C-alpha cells in the first residue's frame, strides 16, 4: 500500500514542504512530527501518490526535477522540499530522504539507510533525519538508535560457532547444518552422504562376492581335467574377474567421493556456520534496492 502525505512546516528560519511516501500506513507518524518539531506548523495532504520515483535513472539526479521543485516552492510558499521514502523488507527498514532547495530546484541533501527495525525505530529514524535537516537532533533519538547495538560486546558469548558446526558435520553429515538452522541444507547433505555410503557399501559387497567367486572358480578350474568343466569354470571365473574389477573401481571411486563429500560437508558447515549479524545498520543502499514509490 502506498501512502502519501504532504505537510508544510514553517519555522523561524526556513519553511519546509514535507512529502512522506511510505509503503504501508504508519500510525502516529504525523503526530510525532508535530510533537518533535513543535516550532513548525504541519499540514497533511494525501492527494499526491507518486513523486520522484525515477530520480536515480538520470545521470544528474540533483538537477532532474528543478522545475517541479520550483513550482512546488511557489505553490506552497516554502524554502525547501523534504521527501521521505520508507520501505519495509522483512525485519529491516529501507529509508531514503531527499532535501531540495526550492530557490534553485536542486537536490542539496540525501540520506539512504538500510537497518534492522527496532522498537519505535521508524519514528525515531524519521525524527533523526528530519532533525538533522533542521539541525535539531535530540540526544534521546541517538540513544534510542543504539538499542540495536550490543551495549557490552565483550559480554557476548557465542552458544553456536562455525567450528562447532564443522565438527558436528564431520561426525554426522548434515548435523552441522542442522545445528546452524539450515534444515534444507542439512537434509541434502545427509541424503547425499547416505546415498553415496550405501552405493559404496553395495559396490564393496559386490566386489567381495565377485572376488570370492572368482577364487572359487579358479580353484575348481585348476582341479579338473574334464574339458567341459574347464570351459564352464573358466567362463564363470572370467565373468567374476570382470565383475570384481568393475566393482573394485566403483567402490574406490564411491569411497573417494564419499570421503571428499564428507570433508566438503564439514567445510560447508564451517563456512555457513552460525556467526553474529554484521548488517544491523547499513548506510547507503545498492541501486536495485531503492524503494519505488
Amino acid at each position, binding site marked *: 500500500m502506498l501512502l502519501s502525505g504532504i505537510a508544510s512546516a514553517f519555522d523561524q528560519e526556513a519553511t519546509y514542504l514535507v512529502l512522506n511516501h511510505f509503503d504501508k500506513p504508519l500510525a502516529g507518524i504525523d503526530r510525532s512530527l508535530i510533537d518533535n518539531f513543535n516550532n513548525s506548523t504541519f499540514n497533511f495532504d494525501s492527494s499526491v501518490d507518486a513523486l520522484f520515483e525515477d530520480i536515480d535513472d538520470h545521470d544528474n539526479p540533483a538537477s532532474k526535477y528543478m522545475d517541479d521543485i520550483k513550482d512546488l516552492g511557489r505553490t506552497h510558499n516554502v524554502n525547501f522540499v523534504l521527501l521521505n521514502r520508507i520501505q519495509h523488507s522483512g525485519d529491516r527498514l529501507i529509508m531514503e530522504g531527499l532535501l531540495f532547495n526550492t530557490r534553485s530546484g536542486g537536490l542539496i541533501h540525501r540520506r539512504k539507510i538500510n537497518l534492522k527495525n527496532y522498537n519505535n525505530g521508524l519514528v525515531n529514524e524519521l525524527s533523526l533525519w528530519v532533525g538533522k535537516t533542521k539541525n535539531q537532533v535530540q540526544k534521546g533519538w541517538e540513544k534510542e538508535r543504539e538499542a540495536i547495538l550490543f551495549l557490552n560486546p565483550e559480554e557476548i558469548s557465542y552458544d553456536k560457532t562455525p567450528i562447532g558446526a564443522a*565438527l558436528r558435520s564431520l561426525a554426522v553429515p548434515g548435523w552441522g547444518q542442522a545445528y546452524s538452522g539450515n534444515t534444507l541444507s542439512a537434509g541434502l547433505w545427509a541424503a547425499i552422504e547416505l546415498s553415496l555410503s550405501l552405493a*559404496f557399501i553395495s559396490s*564393496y559387497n559386490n566386489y567381495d562376492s565377485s572376488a570370492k567367486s572368482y577364487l572359487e572358480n*579358479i580353484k575348481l*578350474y585348476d582341479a579338473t*581335467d574334464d574339458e567341459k568343466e*574347464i*570351459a564352464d569354470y573358466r567362463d564363470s571365473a572370467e565373468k567374476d*574377474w570382470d565383475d570384481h574389477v568393475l566393482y573394485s573401481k566403483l567402490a574406490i571411486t564411491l569411497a573417494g567421493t564419499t570421503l571428499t563429500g*564428507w570433508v566438503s560437508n564439514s567445510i560447508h558447515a564451517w563456512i555457513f556456520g552460525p556467526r553474529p549479524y554484521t548488517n544491523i545498520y547499513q548506510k547507503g543502499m545498492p541501486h536495485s534496492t531503492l524503494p519505488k514509490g
Partner: protein
Amino acid sequence: MRILHGLKISLLVITIVCSCTIYDKIFDNPVDHKANEEQGIGAPTLVFYPKTQTVTQTDSILIGSFIVFKEDSTEPFSGIHLQIEFPNELMELDTIVPGIFITDTSQSTPLFTYTYDDNIVDLYAYFLGTVKLDLEGTGHLADLIFNPLTTGNDSIGYNLSECIIVDHEDAQIDINGMRGAEIIVQ
C-alpha cells in the same frame, strides 16, 4: 572426540578401499586349449595333467596324458605313439593304464602297449571302437604311474619329434605343441 570419530570413519573407508585387491587373471590348466594358446602353444597339443604336483617318497606319482584340440578345429584320430621322457633318477615307472577317452569310457578295449628304457617310455595305442572308427576332440589318453626314488624336483615331457597321431587311414595329424609337468618329491 568428534574429530576422532571422523578420523575413524576415514580410516575405515581407506582400509576398505585398500582391501579392494585386483587378483591376477591366471588360467593355466593344461587341458584348456585357450590357456595353452595364451602361452603360445598351438593345438592339437600333448599335455600332462596336473602341470605340477608335490608328493612324498611314499606316494605314487599319477600323471595323466591328454591330447587337447581347439573346439572348432578338431581332427579325428585312431592311433597314437607317444614318446615320453622322465627323470629316472627321481622316479621309476610303475605302470601305464589307458585313459577313459581311448577306451571310449570303458566301452571298448583299445590296442594299448608300451615299452620303456631308462628314461624314455614309448606308448602305442589304437582305438578299437565298436561303432566308430575314430576319436575326436580333447581327451584323456593314458595315466602314467611312477614311484619316487629320491627327493628332488624335475619335469616330465614329450619328445615331440617321435610322437605321432594318425587317423584310421593311417594319415598323420600334425601335433603343434606339448606341455610337460613338474614333479616335486619331498
